[in-house]
């Protein structure tokens, strides 16, 4: 056995340092960050092209992308750019039939902003219309979706009016696919490739969730060690120590499950999809619980806009509910286990 994450450590540290500079310093700055500015800087640094690195000295690109997604999440505030969707868009274009080299180049260079209709990945669906919220829909220049014709998946670029959708994450503008929807056919996908990419997206979301929860958790531990009441620091109280320990256990367990799921995907395990559902379902549930706890343990300060804890909380809430949402992931994995009569094995 060997640790591949260890091999990517330098790259991840460099990325984390870069991203820290792009993230809003305070809640009031978040809305003013121009996605094109952030996108241009990410492209210039080569981080969007990370999705294209398969074959360039990396056996499989997923472990690297998962590590980078966690680093992106582990910031004081969410990254105001659809980085996960950009990576997924590049991988989808690479996987489908037809020549999309130019479009891929434009995405990784920042000339085009790509996003993805998440719900359409977990089809089959005939049309992507009304299929959940799409990150950076209005800001994007190419919105990719999967639709099914004659039981075969195909990649389309969605054209058409976007409908308003409720936003919880202020750094992640969203919209719904309007109806009628125009869809320009880009190419066909193999079902296996689509499943792998759908799983990859779940793993990337899980990683970002864990990174964001870890950022909140680390801040909470610092706060509990500084804030004094009744003559002692808050972290002296066993009740709070135990809650922190439970959060730590949940964070590390989420990380372990994510690593296991990533490894099964890379190893071509027959049940890798179920591992991906499980990782997203677990992380989506536990990280939201952690975020709630962190807010609570900050007391009144945590309730202020200025403290900024709500930013990562909002990103966690969004990702947990984003397709495929955490509860649905666990239910799908559970249904598969009942049908099979046994729990999936690594």
């Amino acid at each position: 056995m060997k640790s591949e994450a260890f091999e990517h450590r330098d790259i991840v540290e460099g990325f984390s340092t870069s991203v820290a500079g792009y993230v809003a310093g305070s809640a009031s700055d978040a809305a003013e960050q121009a996605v094109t500015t952030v996108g241009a800087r990410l492209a210039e640094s080569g981080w969007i092209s990370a999705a294209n690195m398969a074959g360039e000295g990396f056996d499989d690109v997923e472990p690297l992308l998962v590590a980078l997604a966690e680093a992106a999440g582990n910031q004081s505030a969410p990254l105001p750019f659809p980085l996960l969707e950009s990576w997924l868009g590049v991988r989808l274009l690479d996987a489908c039939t037809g020549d999309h080299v130019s479009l891929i180049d434009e995405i990784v260079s920042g000339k085009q902003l790509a996003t993805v209709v998440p719900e359409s990945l977990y089809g089959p669906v005939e049309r992507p219309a009304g299929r959940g919220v799409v990150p950076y829909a209005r800001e994007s220049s190419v919105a990719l979706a999967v639709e099914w014709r004659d039981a075969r998946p195909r990649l389309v670029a969605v054209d058409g009016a976007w409908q308003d959708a409720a936003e919880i994450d202020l750094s992640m503008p969203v919209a719904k696919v309007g109806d009628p929807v125009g869809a320009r056919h880009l190419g066909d996908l193999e079902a296996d490739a689509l499943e792998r990419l759908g799983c990859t997206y779940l793993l990337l979301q899980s990683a970002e969730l864990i990174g964001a929860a870890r950022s909140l958790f680390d801040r909470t531990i610092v706060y509990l060690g500084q804030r004094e009441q009744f003559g002692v620091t808050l972290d002296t109280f066993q009740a709070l120590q135990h809650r922190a320990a439970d959060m730590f256990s949940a964070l590390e367990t989420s990380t372990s499950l994510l690593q296991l799921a990533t490894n099964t995907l890379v190893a071509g395990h027959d049940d890798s999809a179920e591992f991906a559902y499980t990782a997203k379902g677990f992380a989506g549930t536990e990280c939201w619980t952690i975020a709630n706890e962190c807010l609570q343990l900050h007391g009144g300060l945590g309730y202020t806009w200025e403290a900024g804890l709500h930013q990562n909380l909002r990103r966690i809430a969004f990702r947990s509910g984003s397709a495929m949402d955490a509860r649905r992931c666990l239910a799908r994995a559970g249904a598969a286990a009942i049908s099979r009569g046994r729990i999936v094995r690594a």
Partner: protein
Amino acid sequence: MTLKLTEDEARFEQRVRDWVREVLEPAWQVTYRAGSPEWVAFQKAWDRSLYEGGWAGIFWPPEYGGTKATATERFLYAKVMAEEGAPEGLAKVGRRLLAPMLMAHGTPDQKDRYLGPILRAEEFWCQGFSEPDAGSDLASLRMKAEGDLETGFRLSGQKIWTSHAEHCEFVFVLARSWESERKHDGISFFLLPVESPGITIRPIRQINGASEFSEMFFDDVAVPPENLVGELGKGWHVAMSLLGYERGVEQALGKSAATRRAFERLLGALAEFPAERQAEAAAAVGGMQAEILAVYANAVRLLSQQLEGDSPTEMASVLKLQSSETWRSSAHQQLVLHPPGTHDDVLRDESAIGDYLQSRSATIAAGTSEIQRNIIAKRVLGMGRRTREK
């Protein structure tokens, strides 16, 4: 971290599995009631099979009769044993607890006298550490050890939660040679036969009806000086000298596999749920499957850290906490998640009830969940340090 084993590792894993399937009696858990004389005889026979099969020393260094197994091979061994439902054996306390302590702190005579019979499953040991007033706070133990290195020692006091004492030849105990401001000082580590004059054993009946533990009463029991392990008054250091995480991984994998088997018994019944409750069943199973897989994932990650040379202290506590809580909640789920109208059947299901009751010990034994949380909070997260340093 990747699951891809080398060819040698894959062959090793298969070799272990083939051996277990050839030797292990199928459905032994059903055949032998836990704690019964037949169960004890079966466990001891299994220990001897492990020795004859060359597996008893897999966690031991070669100079003491062990094998040259790598960390990955030891992990694979533990994993396969857990998956195949192999018994723990009664020699485990001697082999996995006492033996490493003797290897680190025993005299040459003690190693010569005791290690061989432990490995060969000829002599069985029980552990006399906990007392009625010294469980989580073991260092506050009260058993007295009067005497000295010239004339020998005499032990007086009580131990509790001693596993299978009445079926073992020997016991190792911690006893207090002198009082000290620092309660960890003054504790000594002794070896003695269970049938020593002055020892009384009283089995404890557990909530599941079995008697796997005992109280032991020591009334002025004589111990020769050569049975002291390590320095007089430094026994705490001896007892804490184990590398705990490998044993923790072994235990966690065992619990995970047992939890998996128990939960899989439930899946067949859930397939019969009416349509309107299928969503409920799927959600519950998905959540439980995640917890069970997470035990394995945490164990693999701990191994990975060990292989990278990192100290896996953090993951060891997480693994113990998460695996024991998973067993407990899974066993509980078995009793509450059942097809409509079958509640009576579930409560009459001895294996489900038995699993639930036994699972209640998992979050208490070998460091309670609350202690694990204390360890994580204070030693891993450093909480309360500023107040302690004031």
